């Protein structure tokens, strides 16, 4: 930076001569001695003041009227330069110099004609810093001796600060303060609409096709050009034709510019803009919160054993109440008994036809298996397990005494002949038509069989100890698919193609009719608690009914891809399984709570694969182990598999 000038720059500060003296004042004879007072004070007097001698100065006689004034104005050539002296009231004719002066003052010029405001300035001191000072005066002593007075003042201040009489100045708060003008505004008031401001829709950003030199793929070919020209302007995808120019300089003015701006303005103010209240839901929230499958252990997860031996479809399975033995019936006209834990085939019972259903007596003190073969139900003692038990079973069957009078009954009970007896068959219940299902009552004395017939003889209930059969229904209500005894109460479930009817056996009446919402029910299983039922159907649905809740399904599960063949509940664990034609077994966690207010919790936990599809059939029967969380499945590939 240049050194600061030592002396103030004096170029423009030329001292001017004072311009105040009025040129007319000394010339006028000062006669009026009233001084500088408002002259209106003398308005009502004939005089206007006093002269030096103390004599009144009288106002000049003014008797001219308007006409005279006008005439004088017209005639007197000096009228324009005649002014009235306020102090004396006399008319004064201004001289040429005076007029000139007035003109100059009006123009803002100096009064003195000879004054030149633009004289060249002469510096008293040069602005340059010289090596020698301007004056040779030595520095004041006080400039280097500390001032006693100041010292005293400072010590006083210091003392006051120490004593706390003077507080240091508060630092100034530099942050600007703002006020929220709309802090208290009601958002619902009319002014609140500004909050609902919807910004104008943005224009599309220019793309490659708008470039002055677009990539060749954006340029239109001849056919496209033709098509573009033939299209309606509103239908065109692009409202211009991409064009190529050698350089930006060669691009001509855009002819549609004004048009487009105008259209944009129309769009902006004619198009009503309002906020659409769209429901903003996270799709994740719509999925019900289900526990993780691994928290619902135990359930079967892997295939453990394969029971090989059957040569055709294995249609049905049943497991002994102890869980030691498994029985399977197959299309190869055999019934096989297996040891569960080793997959050893302990016994093979050849029968006369295809085995449609097997059922092990659920009573642990009776060792008896009911087998459906063609038109008869065989009661077989497999002679497995406790010797005492199966011996007692045989004794129980032998101890039957025929009643005195022959009762008419729809079925024939035949005792097995010697050859059959050696194979284990004890009793044969002969039906009129083919039997397709057999199921035991929980106590193990009664069993029910389903005949594939269209008459009222479809369902039969048999009593083993009395060798007595009865037909509970007087008329047919449709094709019966399967039947089931309630595990605790005297109820009997009959599934037809679309409905499940619940009968009270004691009162002998229909209690409930469940609508399955399925086209064709294939199978049915009941929860060991007795309040829930699952139905599998051929249209690949599984319906869960809560008998206390409604006659409609509580939930309809569609996990399988093909028809369901079988469903099963576990006796102890909260598990149920379904087997399907798609070759899979799906195990679900089905927790039923004692609390009536809490709905059952159904969570699919595992898809078990293993069966090979044969003849478009996969799994034909599923069954849970009575004590372990294991599931058996029998398939069309002639195997039975155990998943643990």
């Amino acid at each position, binding site marked *: 930076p240049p050194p600061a000038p030592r002396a103030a720059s004096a170029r423009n500060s030329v001292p001017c001569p004072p311009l105040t003296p009025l040129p007319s004042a000394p010339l006028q004879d000062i006669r009026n001695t009233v001084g500088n007072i408002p002259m209106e004070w003398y308005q009502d007097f004939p005089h206007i003041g006093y002269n030096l001698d103390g004599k009144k100065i009288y106002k000049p006689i003014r008797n001219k009227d308007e006409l005279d004034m006008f005439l004088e104005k017209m005639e007197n050539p000096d009228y324009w330069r005649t002014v009235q002296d306020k102090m004396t009231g006399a008319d004064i004719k201004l001289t040429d110099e005076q007029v000139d002066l007035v003109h100059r003052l009006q123009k803002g010029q100096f009064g003195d004609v000879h004054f030149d405001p633009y004289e060249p300035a002469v510096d008293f001191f040069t602005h340059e810093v010289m090596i020698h000072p301007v004056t040779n005066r030595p520095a004041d002593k006080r400039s280097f001796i500390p001032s006693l007075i100041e010292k005293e003042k400072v010590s006083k201040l210091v003392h006051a600060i120490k004593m706390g009489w003077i507080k240091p100045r508060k630092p100034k708060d530099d942050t600007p303060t703002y006020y929220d003008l709309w802090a208290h505004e009601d958002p619902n008031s009319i002014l609140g609409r500004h909050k609902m401001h919807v910004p104008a829709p943005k224009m599309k950003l220019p793309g490659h096709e708008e470039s002055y030199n677009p990539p060749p793929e954006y340029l239109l070919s001849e056919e496209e050009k033709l098509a573009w020209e033939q299209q309606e302007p509103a239908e065109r995808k692009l409202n211009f034709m991409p064009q190529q120019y050698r350089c930006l300089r060669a691009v001509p003015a855009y002819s549609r510019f004004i048009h487009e701006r105008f259209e944009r303005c129309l769009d902006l103010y004619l198009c009503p803009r309002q906020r659409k209240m769209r429901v903003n839901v996270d799709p994740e929230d719509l999925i019900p919160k289900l526990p993780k499958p691994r928290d619902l*252990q*135990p359930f079967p997860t892997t295939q*453990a*054993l394969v029971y090989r031996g059957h040569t055709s479809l294995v249609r049905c399975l049943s497991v002994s109440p*102890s869980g*030691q033995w498994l029985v399977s019936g197959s299309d190869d006209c055999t019934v096989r008994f297996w040891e569960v*834990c*080793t*997959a*050893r085939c*302990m016994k093979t019972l050849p029968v006369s036809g295809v085995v449609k259903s097997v059922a092990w007596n659920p009573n642990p003190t009776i060792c008896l298996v009911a087998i459906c073969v063609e038109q008869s139900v065989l009661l077989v003692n497999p002679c497995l*397990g*406790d*010797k*005492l*038990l199966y011996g007692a079973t045989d*004794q129980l069957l032998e101890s039957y005494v025929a009643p005195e009078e022959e009762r008419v009954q729809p079925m024939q009970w035949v005792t097995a002949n010697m050859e059959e007896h050696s194979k284990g068959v004890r009793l044969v219940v002969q039906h009129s038509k083919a039997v397709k299902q057999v199921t035991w009552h929980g106590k193990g004395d009664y069993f029910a069989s389903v005949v594939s017939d269209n008459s009222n003889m479809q369902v039969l209930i048999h009593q083993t100890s009395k060798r007595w059969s009865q037909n509970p229904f007087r008329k047919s209500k449709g094709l019966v698919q399967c039947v089931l005894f309630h595990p605790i109460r005297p109820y009997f479930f009959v599934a037809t193609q679309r409905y499940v009817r619940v009968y009270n056996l004691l009162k002998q009446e229909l209690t409930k009719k469940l609508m399955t919402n399925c086209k064709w029910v294939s199978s049915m299983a009941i929860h060991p608690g007795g309040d829930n039922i699952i139905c599998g159907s051929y249209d690949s649905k599984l319906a869960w009914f809560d008998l206390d809740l409604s006659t409609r399904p509580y939930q309809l599960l569609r996990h399988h891809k093909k028809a369901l063949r079988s469903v099963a509940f576990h006796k102890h664990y909260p598990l149920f399984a379904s087997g399907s034609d798609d070759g899979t077994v799906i195990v679900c966690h089905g927790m039923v709570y004692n609390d009536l207010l809490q709905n059952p919790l159904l969570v699919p936990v595992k898809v078990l694969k293993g069966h090979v599809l044969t003849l478009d059939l996969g799994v034909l029967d599923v069954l849970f182990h009575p*004590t*372990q969380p294991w599931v058996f499945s029998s398939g069309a590939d002639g195997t039975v598999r155990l998943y*643990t």
Partner: protein
Amino acid sequence: SVPAASETTDLSHLINKLLAAGNADHKYVEFDFLINGQFLRVPLVTHIEMENISTEEVVEIEYVEKYMAPQPEECIFHDDWISSVQATEEWILTGCYDQTARIWSLEGKSIMTVAGHTEVVKDVAWVKQDSLSCLLLSASMDQTVLLWEWNVEKNKVKALHCCRGHAGSVDSIAVDCTRTKFCSGSWDKMLKIWSAVPTDEEDEMEEAANRPRKKQKTEQLGLTRTPLATLSGHTEAVSSVLWSDAEEICSASWDHTIKLWDAETGDVKSTLTGNKVFNSVSYSPLCRRLASGSTDRHIRLWDPRSKDGSLVLLSLTSHTGWVTSVKWSPTHEHQLISGSLDNIVKLWDTRSCKAPLYDLAAHEDKVLCVDWTEAGLLLSGGADNKLYCYRYPATASDVGA
């Protein structure tokens, strides 16, 4: 110091070089290496990372001579599935699904067929061995255990006692260390302790009221014997029993527990609870650990002394099916074999719990039983009707550090 990336073969070469330098007539030996009691199976640096061993300190690597692979010796054919096997120094006793027990020589020669059961033989055990006569036991699905006397010279077998009392298939028997008692576990959830001393008296059997005594007599094979004590406590079938001590019985059950019983009083001493059905249990007095095979892929090691009763020390996982039987080595505290439904017998060292030492994949069907004799013979039988024998030289010499 050794390079971090070196593997067992590199280390083995190194040791051999050092040994050859000290001893001119040194032969090349394969070594295995242990770090803090864990076998080295991966490059050193990975192992150190996996085990969280500090690299700042000196890592001690122990070397032992590598265990040789078991050499297959015999393959003994049976007529049916082999349910159980127990071998001594001279004979092999197998239980078979054709309702017999069989005695074989170690060379695989059939010596004797012990027939008498009316159902599948589920377990067999040697009681006593003399040069003249041997006592042996067979347990069967027909709910009895038969005590046989086998005259070696005449090669005659005679049923001495028929142990009746179980109401289900007898799945497991175990003879105590004094050879005077044995314990049986059955499907009927009971454990019964019997005397294994042959006598001439018949125990009184309470009469089944509706059965004529004469008939009962004629059916019977040998003298009837009743249990000394019955231990009940399991809620499901008992799958395996053993004597872990002179007065302590250990039983594994389908109710997911292993129970330790006091044989004198018949009380449960402690219960180890798992979460799967136990198929088999084995105890090693050398390391005082229980090994259990269950209906999943794992072999679990338990400390029977632990009080809280649910402590799994280690689990050995490599099988892909149920582990049907496990057996500790009688001579080596770290080694055991296991047989599984995936047709493979595995030889384990507990110091390498990630992978077995050797896989013996000879069976073509489910392996149902394994045994390990003191002479170093590994036996395994299965559902392919074959009993495989392996000679396993248990060399545990030349341990250095």
